[in-house]
Every structure is written in C-alpha cells, then in structure tokens.
C-alpha cells in the first residue's frame, strides 16, 4: 500500500471518489446482465426440455396407438384372409368397416392402406390418390418382412417414385392363421399429420426437427427450411455447440430420443431476446457507466479541489511565512471548517506581523535611548572636574556653601549618569542626602529631614534615582510655603515586599493628582515627568502589582512605593 502514499492528497481524494462511485456501478451492471442472461438461458433450456419430453411422449403414444390399431384390425384374421380371397365383395366391405373402426382413434395422425404381398395397393383410408404399388424388395416392405409389429421407415425423398407429401411410413405384416404373410398394413404419415401432432407444442420462434434413427431428417416444423438449414440444425444438435461466440442469450439446440423407435427429436429454441437486445443492454450499461464516470469525474474533481485547494494554499502560504513573508493573506469566502482554518491562519500571521513590528519598534526605541545615553555620558568628566574645581576654589576662597553645593551636585551627577540601573537603598539614600543638602542651602533650612530605615534593608537593590523625584516633589510642592516642614523616608518590609514611604507635612495635593497617581496605568502628564517616570520604572521593572500609592491626610501627604525585596539584581 506504499504506492498510495506517493499520490498527492487531491489525487487520493479524487481516486477514492472515483473508485467508490464506479466499482459498484460496473460490478452491479455486469452481475445483473450475467444473471439476467443466465436465468433466461436456464429458463429456455428447462422449457425446451419439457417440450421435448412432451413431444417424445406424444410420439410414443402415437406409435402405441398405431400398434394397437393394427392389432385390433388384424386380430380376427379376416384381413389376412381377404388378401387371398379376392372375390368376396361382402368381406371387402366388412374389411373396410373394421379398418375405419380401427383407425378412428388415430385418424388424424396417419392414413392406413393395405397392400397385398406383391406390393399392390388394395385398400386405403387415404382420400388422395396414391401409388398403386410399393416395391417389395426395397424400402419399407423389405424392411417390414420378418419383423413383427410395425416397422417405421423414413420416406426417401430422392427416390423418384416416392410420394413427396408422405414423410414417414410404417408397415405391419398381415399374416394368416398359418403364419404366412398375405399382405401389409401401411401407415402413411404426411406432413399434415406431423403438423397436427406437434401443433401447440412450440412457439413461432422454435423449430422441431424429427430425425430417424440414422439421424436423417424426417420432418421439420418449418416447411420453408431447405436442406441446408436442416443440416445446419442437425450439425448443431449433433456437435452440441449450442452457443454462438460470446456471452449472452443464444439459440439453443436441445434433443431427445424417442425410446420405442429411436427417433430423434431436435428442438431449436431461438433466444427470446435477440442478440441485438442484449447488445443494446450492454451498450446502455456501458453508457450508464460512462455517464457515471463523467459525473464522478466532475464531482470528485470538484470535491477534491474543494478540499485540497485551501489545504494547498495554506501549505504554500505557510512556506512563505517560514521564509519570513508575514504579509501573506489567503482570501476565502468559505464558511466551513476550512474557511475558519484559513481565517485563523490570516489572523495568526496578522498577529505575528504586528508583534514583530512592535518588537522592531521597541528595539529602535531602545537603540535611540542607548545612543542618547552615550551622548549624555560624553561630558560628565568635564562636569566633575569643573565641579571639583568649583569646590576647591570655594574652599580656598572660604565660601563653604558653594563648596557643599558643588560637592553634593557632583555626587548627584555621578549617580544620575551611572551606567548601573540598580543600586542599593543605602546608595540611593546617600544621593537623597546630597540632594537634601543642596535644597537645604536653597531653602535655608526651612524643613527637617530624617530617615527611618532598618539596617537590613539598606542592602536592598532599588532602581537608581527613583526616590529623588518624590523627595523633590515633597520639598518643592509639599512644603511650598511652609516654614518648618518635615520630610521622613520610612522603609519597611513585609512578605518580601519592600515598602518605602515618603511623608511630608506640607500642604498636601489635590484630589485629581491623587487619583492620577493611584490609577493602574497613569498617562503621561505635563509637569510631572519625574513622578511618571518613577511609576513607569516600577511597573516595567517589577510588574503591574508594584507601584506608587498616594495618601493625603490632615497631617500631610504620604507617597508609598511598593517593590519586591531584592538583594541582588538578576536581570533587567
């Protein structure tokens, strides 16, 4: 069955449909035709044999009747006597009477005549004129000599003296009481007699042929048949070649042998259905098969195309996708499973394409950021050195505020342009400390700053510069206008979550701002870039469940950050 796998899916569907449609049709038409012809042939044979049996029985019956008639006629011995005693007119009359009586039963089957021992005709029941004598040393009477009972003899059609109308003759020796032959009773069977005998036993298409024991024709039920046709029937009957070449219903030649006289009866039964009709039947079934083939070709072609086309389209499209062409789409109007499959494919490639484009865009953005970062890193050393120079110049010139400003600015600068995205909380707090130092100089100590950080949490890794915007907010916005402000940074850990809150006791913030901070994904907002950046950083780095919450009470404002406790940075 491996060969089967070599075909394409479409071919297999096609061939399968073809096979399923054609094989039963062809098979059934062949079987039906053969069964039909076989049953007809069998019927033909059975009926023919029955007819033959009947005819044979009828012939036997006829022979018996003839024998009986002869015996009754000759029983009293008068017939034999009359043959010798020629003058007794009375006796002749009696003889005719008894002759007519004897043959009454078989009157329609044979004509009776009486010939004397010299072969001369003496009495006859035949109304037609006939030969007045028969040869006694040839033919019928010769054969009848020395035989008891009736001898049957086929009339020789070639003998010029023979009566052409008489087909068969029988002879019965008349013997007187001393056993001497005095004459013959001769039975003539004419064509009419045979016609009467066989009448009703055959239909118009059938032909009966009666042959003598030497298989020479006596009678043929079709009078128009010449020697050639008759010999043809005989040769068919003899050879037993019943059929013509080829299949179908054919003419049959059946035969039987009458038991008492060995007479052959051949019946030729023509086929009730002509070979033409059989051929027509064959042609019709071939045409039907052809029609079936055409329909089948069309339907299975359409079906296999319907199934295989989308599959092969998908196959080709998939090959293109594999090569990277994600723009491919398959157009379909179908509503069935294959239609849905095609649509799913389209959607899948669409999604894939979109995802790929997003990824590319992100990559581009990242590249841009990186470049920007590199650009920003170009000048820091110059800035440090400058700040350092400022610091030292301030010390030399004894302007301590400028020295402090420059020193802390340098610390913040260093932190802000550091390449490490994560730093420890301690480092972050140091940055905040520097920032506070600067702000304290700016705002000349209007606020108090303190931290409450457990020692063990100082090693936690946090995003760089993420507290600074919040502290800046608290100083610039929260403590705006306050004389003695207070800012506290408080850290705590619970269930692996690090909470850092920045509290100020300033003027608080408006409700809209609180809602904005507390929303899941705050949109970018003018003037609050720092806060937005912190929120995004936390969400991007740690996920949606982490972030910032703002709380405004009478005492002040608390911004709480939630982030996981991480001792070391795994990956960004």
């Amino acid at each position, binding site marked *: 069955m*491996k060969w089967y796998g070599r075909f394409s899916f479409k071919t297999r569907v096609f061939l399968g449909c073809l096979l399923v449609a054609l094989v039963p049709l062809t098979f059934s038409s062949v079987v039906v035709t053969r*069964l039909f012809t076989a049953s007809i042939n069998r019927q033909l044979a059975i009926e023919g044999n029955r007819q033959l049996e009947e005819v044979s029985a009828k012939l036997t019956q006829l022979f018996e009747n003839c024998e009986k008639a002869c015996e009754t006629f000759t029983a009293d011995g008068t017939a034999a006597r009359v043959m010798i005693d020629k003058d007794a007119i009375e006796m002749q009359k009696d003889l005719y009477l008894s002759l007519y009586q004897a043959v009454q039963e078989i009157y329609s089957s044979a004509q009776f005549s009486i010939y004397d021992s010299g072969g001369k005709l003496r009495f006859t029941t035949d109304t037609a004129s006939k030969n007045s004598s028969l040869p006694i040393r040839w033919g019928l009477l010769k*054969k009848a000599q020395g035989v008891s009972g009736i001898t049957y003899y086929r009339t020789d059609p070639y*003998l010029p003296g023979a009566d052409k109308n008489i087909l068969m003759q029988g002879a019965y020796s008349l013997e007187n009481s001393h056993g001497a032959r005095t004459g013959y009773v001769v039975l003539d069977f004419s064509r009419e007699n045979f016609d009467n005998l066989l009448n009703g036993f055959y239909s118009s298409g059938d032909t009966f042929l009666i042959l003598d024991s030497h298989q020479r024709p006596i009678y043929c039920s079709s009078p128009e048949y010449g020697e050639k046709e008759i010999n043809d029937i005989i040769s068919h009957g003899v050879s037993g070649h019943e059929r013509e070449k080829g299949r179908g219903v054919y003419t049959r030649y059946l035969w039987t042998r009458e038991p008492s006289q060995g007479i052959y009866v051949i019946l030729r039964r023509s086929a009730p259905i002509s070979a033409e009709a059989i051929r027509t039947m064959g042609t019709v079934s071939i045409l039907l098969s052809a029609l079936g083939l055409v329909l089948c070709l069309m339907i299975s072609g359409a079906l296999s195309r319907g199934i295989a086309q989308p599959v092969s389209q998908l196959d080709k499209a998939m090959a293109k996708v594999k090569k990277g062409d994600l723009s491919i789409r398959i157009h379909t109007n179908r509503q069935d499973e294959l239609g849905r499959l095609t649509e799913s494919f389209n959607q899948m490639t669409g999604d894939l394409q979109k995802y790929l484009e997003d990824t590319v865009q992100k990559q581009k953005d990242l590249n841009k950021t990186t470049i920007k970062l590199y650009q920003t890193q170009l000048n820091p050393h110059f800035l440090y050195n400058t700040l350092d120079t400022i610091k030292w110049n301030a010390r030399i010139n004894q302007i301590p505020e400028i020295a402090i400003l420059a020193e802390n600015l340098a610390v913040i600068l260093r932190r802000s342009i550091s390449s490490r995205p994560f730093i420890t909380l301690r480092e972050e707090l140091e940055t905040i400390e520097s920032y506070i130092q600067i702000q304290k100089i700016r705002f000349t100590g209007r606020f108090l700053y303190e931290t409450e950080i457990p020692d063990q949490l100082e090693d936690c890794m946090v995003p760089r510069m993420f507290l600074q915007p919040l502290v800046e907010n608290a100083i610039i916005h929260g403590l705006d206008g306050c004389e003695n402000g207070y800012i506290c940074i408080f850290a705590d850990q619970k269930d692996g979550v690090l909470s850092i809150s920045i509290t100020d006791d300033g003027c608080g913030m408006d409700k809209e701002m609180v809602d904005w901070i507390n929303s899941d994904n705050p949109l970018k907002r003018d003037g609050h870039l720092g806060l937005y950046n912190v929120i995004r950083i936390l969400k991007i780095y740690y996920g949606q469940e982490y972030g910032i919450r703002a709380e405004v009470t009478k005492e002040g404002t608390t911004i709480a950050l939630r982030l996981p406790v991480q001792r070391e940075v795994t990956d960004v």
Partner: protein
Amino acid sequence: MRLSNSTRKRWPSVCALSLICCILLSSCRSEAGEQTMYSPADLVVYSVQEKGICEPIIKEFEERTGLNVKVEPGSLEELLKKLEDGSGLYGDDGEAWDVVFGVGIETLEEKKEYWQAYESPEVPSIAGAFRCGDYTWTSFSACPLVIMYNTNVVTYREVPSGWTSLLEPRWKGRVAFMDPGMSDIYSSALATAVYKYRGEGDYMKQLADNLEYGSLTSLSEVNSGILDGRYSLGVTLEGAAQALRSGGADVDYIYPKEGTTVLPDGTAIVNGCPNLEEARCFLDFTVSEDAQRILVSDLNRRSVRMDVPPLPGLSPVNKLPITDMDLKRLSQEKQEILKQWNRILFLYKRSAGE
C-alpha cells in the same frame, strides 16, 4: 509493514466480499453440458455420385444393416487433387474415407494403387465388360451417352444419327455441350467422337466452330437447355434423357451410330480404411440384385448385372453400339483430347482478340 497490518485487519471483510463476488459470478456459469447426439459413423463414403442416386442406396443400406453411414459428397476433381497432392483420403473434418462411390471406372483403374482388392460374392453376376481383372474396384452402374434432341425443333428428317450430326451446319450455335475440361462425361464423349470420326478435317475444330466456341458449365444446364428449346440437341446421359422422356417432356434421344461410351462408375475400398467389414458389406450391397433393380427401375441407370434387364423399351447393353475403346486407351485419349481442345479454344480466343 505498518500498512499491511491495517490490511490484515480488513482481511475478513475482503474475504467475504470476494466470496460474494465468486458466488454471484459462478451462478452465471452455464449448466454442465449434457451428452451429445453424436454417434460415430460406422462407414464413411466419399460419393462422386449424383445425390439422387447415392441417397436412396445409402438409405437402404442403413435401413438394412442398421449402420450409420456418413456421406461425404464431392467431385472427381477434388478426389484426383487429393490423390495427387498426397494429402490422403480424408474428409475436411479428418475422417478417413472407407469407400469411394460413383467414380468412373477408368479413374478407378488409373489410380489402382489407392484401393484394396475385394472380390465380392456378387461378382459372377456382373457383366464381363464391367468386371475388374484384379478386383480392386467393383462397377456399380452404367450410363451410356446419348444425343438428346428437342422434338419440337428437330423434325423427324433432321433427327441426328451420330457424332457427326453435331457438326451439321444447321445446328450451328444450337448444340448443347458442356466444357470437357469441367466434366468427365463430356471429355469421354469427345474422346469417343474423335476416335470414331472418319470424316474430313479435324472433328474437334469443327465441333468447336459449330458450338461457336461456347460451352455450358453443368449437365443440368444442358438438359434444361434442350428441354426449353434454347438448344436443339446435345450430348447427355441416357438416364437423364430417359427420365425426361418418360416424364413426358418433348425430347427424344438416340445412341450415336458410330458407337457410344457407357461411362460405367464403380465403387472401391480405400487402402487401409478403418471400417473394412462395413466397407465390404456396402460394396456387396451396391451390386446386390435389389440395389441394381432399383437402379434400373427408379434411378434411370443401367445395371452392371447380367440378371437385371433394363426397363422395357431400352435395349440391353450388349445390343447398344458401344465403342471398342478400352479403359486405358480412353483415359489416355481423354487427356490428349483435353489438351487439343484447350489449344483450339486458345487459338480462337487469340484470333478473336486480334
């Protein structure tokens, strides 16, 4: 073998399906042939004889003996061809011939080596002229050649008298004569006429001229031609002429005064035949008195037996003017005559063509 496993699972259904197909198809098989009517022939007779003579004889033989005789009708030419090309004496369907029947005795004499000798107990009754010296063949019947004429067109003064009458100018184009090349009878007739001719010129040339170089192709054409007056006279067999005359037709016939030939035919048993007993039985029957009598009384032939006289009105054989040609001479003459005849026709055609 992964796939064959799946087919193995389907074996039962495949088997069932094939079984059903087989049953269906075998039901279409015709029933067993019954016994045939054929019964082998006890005797095979190759007959050159006319059917009208052969059939009654065969039939009577069958009736008397109860044997089955197969008759293979044929022609002399066919027989000679078979003898000459050495294909053996077999019928078309391969049955060996036992007896050849109705062949001219000059042919039988010539092809002696093919027959086996058998001395029938009836031989002593056969007339001496028809006996075979070494019994290789047995004559069956004799049929003298006659000149038949239509009594309506031939007045009693014009009645032909012999072979020379055929040359009379008044019968130019009115003589029925069959092509000697096609008929044994006519070549014999021509040979006899030429042998007996004492007149001037070439008999054959004159005859051909009188026939206007046309000849018929069958004996029945000759007979019917004379009967319906297309021809005034012609050469035919005594039997046919006698049958026509006794049937009341307006024809009469004469025996040529110079002498005629009696064209005896005969029977011979083929060398090495398979049914020797039956063949001998048949041969005995053909010359039996019964058969010879029927030959005379009903079949318009002359008997070869001395004790069977011809029908009343026919002169006995020994009173007929019979030529004194012997068989060998006749046989030779015939061949010579045929050659000459063909040359005459050829010359005529050539001159006519020119």
